[in-house]
């Protein structure tokens, strides 16, 4: 867990965002405390805290005094909108640029997209790296 190339706190934040997106973590649901996080994954609590404070700033989590961290209301919608926007910028744009380089006609791409049976839930919107 969290063995990727990015800093650990970035990976933790990505993991929590993914959980919120997939609905595993519902809105107003309590998130593991930094201590639980630290002992579960054997990481420094400060690293977990850094991930959490980033998520609070983003509005994904909020802090209830003395109780802990909770998923903010509207967090999922916010993340969905954000990821949808980024999907075009970060996934589709480079793919279309590549298509230009390879001289693939736009019509072919459109045909390909239309011929593809879309899966329910739009899971393709989740950014996977």
């Amino acid at each position, binding site marked *: 867990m969290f063995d990727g190339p990015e800093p650990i706190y970035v990976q933790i934040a990505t993991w929590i965002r993914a959980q919120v997106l997939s609905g595993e973590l519902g809105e107003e649901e309590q998130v593991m405390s930094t201590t639980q996080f630290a002992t579960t994954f054997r990481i420094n609590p*400060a690293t977990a805290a850094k991930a959490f404070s980033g998520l609070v700033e983003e509005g994904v989590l909020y802090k209830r005094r003395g109780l802990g961290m909770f998923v903010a209301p509207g967090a999922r919608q916010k993340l969905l909108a954000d990821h949808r926007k980024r999907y075009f910028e970060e996934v589709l744009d480079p793919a279309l640029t590549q298509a230009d380089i390879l001289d693939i006609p736009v019509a072919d791409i459109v045909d390909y997209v239309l011929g593809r049976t879309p899966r329910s839930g739009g899971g393709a919107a989740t950014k996977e790296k």
Partner: protein
Amino acid sequence: MSIAPFGAALDSVAVHYPTSWRMTQQGTVARETGGTALDGATCTFPAGAITGLLGRNGAGKTTMIGLLAGFRRPTSGTVRVGPEGYERDPWENPAIVSGVQVVRESGDVMPDEKVGVTLRHYGAVRPEWDADYAERLLDLFEVDTRKNPASLSRGKRSALGATIGLASRAPLTIFDEVYLGMDAPTRYAFYDELLKDYAEHPRTIILSSHLVGETERLFEHVVVVDRGRVLLAEPAEDMRARGTSLTGNATAVDHLAAGHRLLHRQELGPTVMVTVEGSLAEQEAAEAADSGVQVGSVPLQDLFVHLTSTTAQKESER
């Protein structure tokens, strides 16, 4: 009585050991040759953080720890330990040393008395000692308290050391390679207890090691010493960013690596894997992506080995 975590700082510290004589417990006289253990070391250990003190065998880690605990004085330079803003010279300072717990491989126990005698002494001296916690830990690590430390296995002696370190709840707690003697399950149990108790009772913790792998994610801060000098002292994230691994086609990789200091290079047929100092600039990252070069992070252990190996050839650690 609760006390704030202790920070510590060394300022151009040198330690030269004179050749000395010492009487052994058997009554013979042993000669100990001198040498330079630290040579102008400057660094800080931030209060409240878990810091990894990394260095190869003989790099000066144990000497540095001895200074922080007031076991010895530096030949030159200053050592300061204490609550933030109130750091003092630890030498013979009861307010400070009563708050610094060092757990060394040698154990610092009464070897021929029952474990309880040693624990009672620690409890009698240490203001923050938690006897109940010590008992729970000994239970967890399965240390037989009816035995004396000399008749315990190396692993159990390490576990006893870990118990002393944790139960002391000292505002500065230092583990000097103690966990090396433990088996894997005990080591993991130790890490878990350390993190749990650290979260509940914030304090400063220093873990010294020449084997980084297992513990690297516990560190918030790192200090690397090499041949008596401080190579770096910075947040662990910064140290991780000090190295980048590039894997891919030899020409592309070498082109990218050209602007960086090469730490390590390994050829796997037509593919090469190099470790370079620093991280890639934005355009370099784009170039890497275009040429199919995989950019990765470097484990602290590898960085540590690259940074401290004297020869290009990677020496294997004992």
